[in-house]
């Protein structure tokens, strides 16, 4: 094996004729290459590469031509297209980086010539089986990064020279542009689909809380993917807010994100406390052994008691903006990013959240600018959040984003933002909930917060809340089997009485008694009046509790 021109070859006798032929071939090749850009519009990458290899093989008067692309995550070169060596592609030949012929071309980032294959270190058995004697390989690179290897081979012994090398490199460079573009489009569309599928379709609409979120894919091509946010109701009825960022970009990052997101939801829904969830996720990511790490911040918000509990695995601190526009970072005890090593120590911290406050979770793309310390980005975010708090013309997430972009210019990375504002509840509330038992705990918390805010005694709060929860459980039971059905809860506090109505649209069998015996008895015992109205299109239950303002 030699560097091109590193060894004097034989075959100089025919040099003149060969040179002329090669010049023609070279011109043809250049011509062909010049049309590749235009051809890209309608040729698939496969077709384009096949066409390119065909021309190179002819142009260099070789017997075989092939291109292998680097799979960066696994550190192997994978045969992508070939001429005269089609089985290499069919068999999905993989060459480890730095090993074998192609592996060394890629690792060394420079051309390699093999004059006699029988004496060289070759990983791919197909090359020998095919009877290839001499080879020339060049790296395929984009912006200084090796993305693959292109090689040609001959059955007869031949020493490829500098001119051959230059020509093959020219072809490889053109192929690189096409591959990079095609990959970016490919990755982008797959990543985009995954990303969209993995972000919540809609944010919860609940009394006393207003959610807003924003996701923006990073500046160019394959840089997107890996950022996500999630909101859901925990078994306790509190709200779980999650934001995370998987290191890396593209489809792989998005798939790791999908795994973390699903596991995180599962752990939280099983009722594990926040630090345990982080530990479980960390174990999971380490055990997956994919050398992927992620930063995650989780908050558990209880609007009823006005508390936020937070845990962080290397994520940037959530920001809380108070009603008077003061913006402060919540600094949860910082744990290691997930996936680095086993046994990370994750602890929660608790904060107060006043009515009128907003909590903002975000990913680093929002604050990081190239060549700037992170503190400057955080300061900028704090200022932007302060300004956004004074403005009301769009959602909070939109406002913060707008303030920052107007301030800082184009974003290079993905950006995800998730905000929740704690709103005051008035004497009337109204909500629509999914007809599934998981919503009951959340319903009780909202009613509890509302009734405490209305100044009711603890005993009254308990009675009304539990009676309403019973009626809601019945509404859910009526909807059993129906897909995506919902029920409505409305409440009014009017002077000396509280009235709560729960309406469902469930199909109702007249022969069936309303609710379980015990449920109805509880309702009737806890409130002063429980009216059940059955209609053809559903059932409404109205609960009335009289409030004595004088102590009994």
């Amino acid at each position: 094996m030699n560097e091109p021109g590193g060894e004097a070859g034989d075959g100089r006798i025919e040099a003149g004729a060969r040179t002329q032929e090669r010049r023609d071939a070279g011109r043809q090749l250049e011509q062909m290459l010049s049309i590749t850009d235009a051809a890209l519009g309608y040729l698939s990458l496969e077709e384009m590469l096949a066409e390119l290899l065909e021309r190179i093989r002819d142009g260099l008067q070789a017997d075989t031509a092939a291109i292998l692309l680097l799979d960066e995550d696994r550190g192997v070169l994978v045969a992508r297209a070939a001429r005269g060596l089609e089985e290499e592609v069919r068999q999905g030949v993989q060459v480890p980086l730095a090993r074998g012929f192609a592996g060394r071309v890629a690792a060394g980032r420079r051309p390699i010539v093999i004059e006699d294959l029988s004496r060289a270190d070759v990983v791919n058995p197909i090359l020998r089986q095919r009877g290839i004697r001499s080879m020339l390989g060049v790296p395929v690179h984009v912006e200084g990064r090796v993305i693959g290897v292109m090689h040609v081979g001959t059955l007869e012994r031949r020493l490829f020279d500098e001119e051959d090398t230059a020509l093959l490199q020219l072809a490889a460079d053109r192929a690189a542009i096409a591959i990079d573009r095609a990959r970016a489009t490919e990755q982008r569309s797959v990543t985009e689909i995954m990303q969209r599928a993995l972000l919540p379709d809609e944010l919860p609409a609940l009394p006393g809380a207003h959610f807003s979120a924003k996701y923006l894919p990073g500046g160019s091509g394959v840089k997107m993917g890996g950022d996500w946010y999630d909101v859901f109701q925990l078994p306790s009825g509190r709200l779980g807010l999650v934001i995370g960022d998987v290191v890396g970009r593209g489809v792989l990052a998005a798939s790791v994100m999908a795994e973390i997101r699903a596991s995180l939801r599962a752990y939280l829904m099983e009722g594990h406390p926040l630090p345990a969830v982080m530990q479980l996720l960390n174990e999971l990511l380490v055990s997956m052994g994919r050398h992927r790490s992620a930063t995650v911040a989780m908050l558990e918000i209880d609007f009823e008691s006005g508390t936020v509990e937070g845990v962080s695995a290397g994520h940037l601190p959530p920001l809380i903006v108070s009603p008077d526009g003061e913006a402060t970072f919540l600094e949860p005890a910082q744990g290691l990013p997930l996936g680095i090593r086993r046994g990370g120590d994750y602890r929660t911290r608790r904060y107060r959240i006043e009515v009128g406050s907003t909590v903002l979770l975000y990913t680093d793309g929002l604050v990081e600018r190239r060549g700037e310390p992170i503190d400057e980005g955080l300061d900028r975010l704090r200022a932007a959040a302060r300004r956004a708090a004074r403005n009301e013309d769009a959602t909070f997430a939109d406002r913060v984003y707008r303030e920052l972009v107007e301030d800082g210019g184009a974003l290079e990375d993905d950006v995800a933002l998730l905000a929740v504002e704690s709103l005051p509840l008035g004497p009337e509330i109204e909500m629509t909930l999914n007809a599934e038992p998981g919503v009951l705990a959340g319903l009780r918390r909202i009613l509890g917060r509302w009734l405490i805010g209305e100044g009711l005694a603890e005993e009254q709060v308990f009675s009304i809340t539990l009676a309403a929860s019973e009626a809601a459980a019945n509404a859910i039971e009526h909807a059993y089997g129906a897909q995506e059905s919902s029920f409505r809860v409305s409440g009014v506090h009017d002077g000396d009485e509280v009235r709560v109505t729960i309406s469902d649209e469930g199909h109702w069998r007249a022969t069936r008694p309303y609710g379980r015996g015990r449920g109805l008895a509880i309702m009737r015992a806890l409130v002063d009046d429980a009216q059940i109205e059955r209609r053809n299109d559903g059932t409404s239950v109205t609960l009335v509790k009289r409030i004595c303002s004088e102590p009994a």
Partner: protein
Amino acid sequence: MERREGVPVVRPREDIDAANATSLREQLSGYVDVGVDQLVLDLTGTRYIDSAGLDMLFRLAELLRQRRAALALVITPDSNLARLGEIVGLPNAMAVYASVEDALSTRVQRSLDG
């Protein structure tokens, strides 16, 4: 779950309602194996129990009786939950104590008597 003097003591973190009653019953009945004659369910940290949760408690008490064990509830006296228990007749079907210690000491007393 913790075991005190060999007795499983469970303190649910959340309300007991239609969403979790079944899984909680399965979990709790799993703690009552051979040699366990009492299960203490500490409800002092529980705010709400709905009718599905109450049904579960009645069924669990019955199941334990069949296994010659007793279900002991711990409910703060004069609390909302105590009031709810009276409404549905919980104390008629199972033992209700003011504290975990009370529940455990009654058991000791009983075994001394026996």
